[in-house]
């Protein structure tokens, strides 16, 4: 394993931002290669943890270096300036690095960061991007793929997650890493991690095991793993949404990953001053809650639950 410097940016008063990659060179020249991108946002705690755990696994746990067949590059952190002060985006101008791809070497700071990262990860056969949802909800771990015409659904199934979200491409998605990476012929997948500030070991293990399964099934490592789920591919039309008709204190009684029956109470809104329960959320169908609003205070109109129906 060697550590490669991908980018270095100085600051007026802070220590330089150094973006490092951990490169594991494979033993089989015929094997495919993969790059894994961790935290692009300062609130991507689980992406950071998962990527660093993967470094530890490949460096210290896999036991025999020959088991690493293809080249594997892991970049655990891109936006450490934001991670270190609990900011979400680039701390100075609040721009989102994941909206700057493919980057521009003569552009603004985050465009330059994106360009240097993109140069380092271009040409890999596979690309894994560890992300969080951009709204205020927690979700079960899943693979997000845009309907770009370049997406690889079959490859996404080899992670063994329960869900693959096959999402319509919107204009804003054309500047993401996933889209641009695919455009440059890398089979790229976004793994959406729960949004928590603390590490949820169960979710973390599920994501980590999914990536190891992917590496194994695609010939990047020679490492036996238990199979995961047979993934369900869902489009936005197949997602049932539940909105909050009132505001107040939000209590979820059923969390993401729970199977529910139609009309089960899945959450409540409590009046924030008199403490009365003013609304019960009922499941709109039989199925699984895949996303759940995560804050204790809720605004009227908030998209609160997303379910995938069954039956």
């Amino acid at each position, binding site marked *: 394993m060697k550590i490669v410097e991908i980018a270095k*940016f*100085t*600051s*007026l*008063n802070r220590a330089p931002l150094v973006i490092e990659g951990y490169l594991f060179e494979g033993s089989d020249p015929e094997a495919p290669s993969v790059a894994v991108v961790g935290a692009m946002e300062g609130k991507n705690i689980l992406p950071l943890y998962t990527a660093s755990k993967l470094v530890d696994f490949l460096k210290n746990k896999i036991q025999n270096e020959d088991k690493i067949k293809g080249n594997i590059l892991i970049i655990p952190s891109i936006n450490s300036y934001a991670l270190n002060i609990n900011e*979400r*985006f680039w701390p*100075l*101008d*609040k721009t989102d690095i994941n*909206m700057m791809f493919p980057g521009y070497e*003569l*552009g*603004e*700071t*985050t*465009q*330059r960061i994106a360009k240097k990262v993109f140069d380092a990860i271009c040409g890999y056969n596979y690309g894994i991007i560890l992300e969080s949802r*951009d*709204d*205020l909800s927690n979700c079960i771990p899943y693979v997000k793929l845009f309907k770009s015409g370049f997406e690889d659904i079959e490859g996404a199934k080899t992670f063994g997650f329960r869900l693959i979200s096959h999402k319509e491409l*919107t*204009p*804003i998605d*054309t*500047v993401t890493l996933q889209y641009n990476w695919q455009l440059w012929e890398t089979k790229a997948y976004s793994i959406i991690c729960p949004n928590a500030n603390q590490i949820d070991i169960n979710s973390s293990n599920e994501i980590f095991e999914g990536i190891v399964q992917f590496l194994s099934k695609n010939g990047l490592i020679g490492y036996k793993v238990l199979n995961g789920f047979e993934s369900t591919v869902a489009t936005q039309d197949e997602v049932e*949404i539940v*909105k909050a008709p*009132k*505001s*107040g*204190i939000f209590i979820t009684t059923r969390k993401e990953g729970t199977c529910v029956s139609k009309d089960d109470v899945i959450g409540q809104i409590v009046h*924030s*001053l008199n403490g009365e329960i003013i609304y019960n959320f009922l499941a709109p169908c039989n199925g699984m809650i895949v996303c759940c609003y995560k*804050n204790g*205070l*809720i*605004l*009227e*109109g*908030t*998209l609160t639950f997303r379910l995938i129906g069954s039956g």
Partner: protein
Amino acid sequence: MQVKEIFSSQLPVGETLSIKRSRFEPFKKSDNLKRISIVSGTHGDELEGQYAIYLLTSWLSENPDAISGIIDIYPAVNALGIDTITRGFPLYEVDLNRVFPGGEDGFLPGQLVHALVQDVKGSDIAIDIHSSNIFLREIPQIRINKEFSNSTLPLAKELNCDFIWIHDAVTVLEATFSHTMNSLGTKTLVVEMGVGMRVTKEYGKQLLCGMLNLMKKEGIITTEKSFEAREPFLSEVGEVFYLNSPSSGLFVPALDHCAIIKKNEKIGTIVEPLTGTVLDTLYAPNGGILFTLREFPVVYEGSLLARIFGEKDR
């Protein structure tokens, strides 16, 4: 004048977020009146539009007899952001001008912009007033997507701005208010002027004159008063040159905003206070007008320092 709530959401503790529109229309109503919508405050840290709109609503209130069309005013699309110095939609940290056209079943910021689109839809003209951001100061200018320039350029020339910047179509900008409204048939212009978190009084007055001039030309107001619109320079007759910071430090400008400069003229320095070192000295890559100048002095490598509009040196 009537005030209508176009979107509302109860907040968790005893408060309601309310997005409002005021409508000015003639005493004598008739069908087929022309309608213009003036929108601002999509970014909570951009306040130039607040003042320009205040001047306009004030003028309309004082001249009700002049109103011969419908004038809809949306001063604070991101009302919560404006009152809390937050550029994006608070809580979600989302740039509202990147989530258009939104949708009823989308997340809350998407529902808000959807409500705005539904209300503005059907207007003949819309003006979306921005103030750059907190980092850059801009002269009053209109930004136009080339895709819609045939219909919007003649209107832009009436707005009394200094510069009209016609840019190529960019896919990501399809998520903006202006692209959405232009696609729906409302001729929409984007004004950029001044700087974030501040009000530049002369720019507000300049734009007021332009808005009244445009409305008079379009028959939305009818008055004997005349409004002069200055001749703007068009981006197509020259070129925009960018100057990004080569290093991180403190930017100290050597020139004033709007200065007419020559190639290789000193624009400023990047310095390091700790050691008294001048890290870099910046020179103009081309002659022209310094129409964008950095206002916020802390810079990283890549931060935009200035834009110059001029003829390319041969």
